[in-house]
């Protein structure tokens, strides 16, 4: 039922998003936009050397996109650029394929229910698309469309 999608952790992170604030000393920044639902998100990163030291976001969206941004920023801290991109790949796989859920995703596995809701995949990936743009430091806002 619908509880498979809105697992407790997702509801918790959507109601009390972590890292939900602007970051003054960020050195990477990117905007994401989902034109289908109007969700907008701004991602801040502090990257030192090759390592993401800190991550935060601003913006409002649905429970899935907010929880996704919250859990993503949590899981990024301390990761290298390559590790972050690898995590993005695995996360995308979790949402869009039927392969068994991989355990090394940590808390992100709570999004496994999204694969049964194709219309909501873009909600869960908005933050990650924005991450890619921030890491590549492309200035243009990314869009899910």
């Amino acid at each position, binding site marked *: 039922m619908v*509880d498979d*999608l809105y697992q407790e952790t997702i*509801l918790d992170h959507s109601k009390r998003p972590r890292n939900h604030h602007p970051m003054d000393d960020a050195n990477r920044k990117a905007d994401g936009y989902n034109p289908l*639902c*109007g*969700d907008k998100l701004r991602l801040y990163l502090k990257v030192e050397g090759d390592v993401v030291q800190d991550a935060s976001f601003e913006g409002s969206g*649905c*429970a*899935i996109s907010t929880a996704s941004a919250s859990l993503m920023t949590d899981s990024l801290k301390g990761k290298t650029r390559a590790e972050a991109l690898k995590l993005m790949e695995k996360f995308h796989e979790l949402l869009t394929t039927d392969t068994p859920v991989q355990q090394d995703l940590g808390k992100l596995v709570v999004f496994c229910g999204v694969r049964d809701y194709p219309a*909501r995949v873009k909600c869960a990936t908005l933050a990650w698309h924005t991450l890619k743009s921030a890491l590549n430091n492309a200035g243009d806002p990314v869009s899910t469309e």
Partner: protein
Amino acid sequence: MSTVRKEVSIGFDVEKVREDFPVLKQTIHGKPLVYLDSAATAQKPFAVIDAIRKFYEVDCANIHRGVHELSQRSTAAYEETRVKAKRFLNARTKNEIIFVRGTTEGINLVTSSWGRHNVNQGDEIVISALEHHSNIVPWQMLCEEKGAKLRVIPMNDRGELILEEYEKLLGPRTRMVAFAHVSNALGTINPARQMIEMAHAAGALTLVDGAQAAPHMKIDVQALDSDFYTFSGHKVFGPTGIGVLHGKTKLLNAMPPYQGGGDMIRTVTFEKTTYNDLPYKFEAGTPNIASGIGLGAALDYVARIGLDKIAAYEHELLHYGTQALSQIPGLRIIGTAREKAAVLSFVMEGIHPHDIGTVLDRQGIAVRTGHHCAQPVMDWFHIPATTRASLAFYNTPAEIDALAAGLNKVKEVFG
């Protein structure tokens, strides 16, 4: 829910009507389908499905050319829809009925054909704050091309256009006033007759986007005195891919063709082509014949039920729905015009429309969530999106109750 009237009193046999719509008889995620997305597209009665099936099974041929029996049958059936559309809109002649793909193409035909030849630098086009993107973007494109200016009639908190402000926008440079008869995002019924009169007094023409009006009310283009009126077949219980643009003969005759190709010509040589008469001048290429025939069946079906009855029943249903939703704490209805049709757009405190839509879907309830192709409307209300339940005459008070129960479930999940 105790203070909500449980009955819709008008004499209208909705259960009998529902028998005509096969799609309604199914379960979604184990629950009976509650279809509340008719403003996006309406469901189709057997009459329409059967007409399309008959065309492909029995009468299929291209129109307007063959001398053989099948071609004559398909031509007759297709052209019969033109007569039905003339009746549906109370047009003066059937030659004022131009078949298009839908409302969007109807508007684009006017901006391309009329607009390119009549709008010049410094001219002004007036639209309204509650338009669908399809009645904004084509005019914007035209204005950009011509160096003309787009002006927008503002609305009030209820989602009603402010006519005093509209009056001020009209001037000697106003060439066209284009507005929705009924707003898709808010349900507002605009005072079309009055707005057209005001435009004409200023020497401007009018285009009415009737996409959301045609399924819900009687339309009379002669009484309205609209210069152009357009609607989509699929919102009026017909197939997708077909719609109607009505225009006054004098205007249509003066306009150049929209697209070039077969059917819209009289003679073609490499030196010179002469164009066909109305309405064919605007209908290049083989049209969507099956959908055209299906639209005829839909217009017959609606006429049989009666638009007066439909409007009266839906009015009661909308009232019932408004009351039911108003009792849900934290829910705010967006669009509370005094004259309103068939749309319940709303937001819920702290809960995003997409989450509402997903939870409702799991209970078999189909609503639309998002900006409804009316982003300026959303911006005006400072919201990113709404949840929209839109009604048709096949909906019931019990379905409204299901929606209300579903929204209480939404609150349980996200409360």
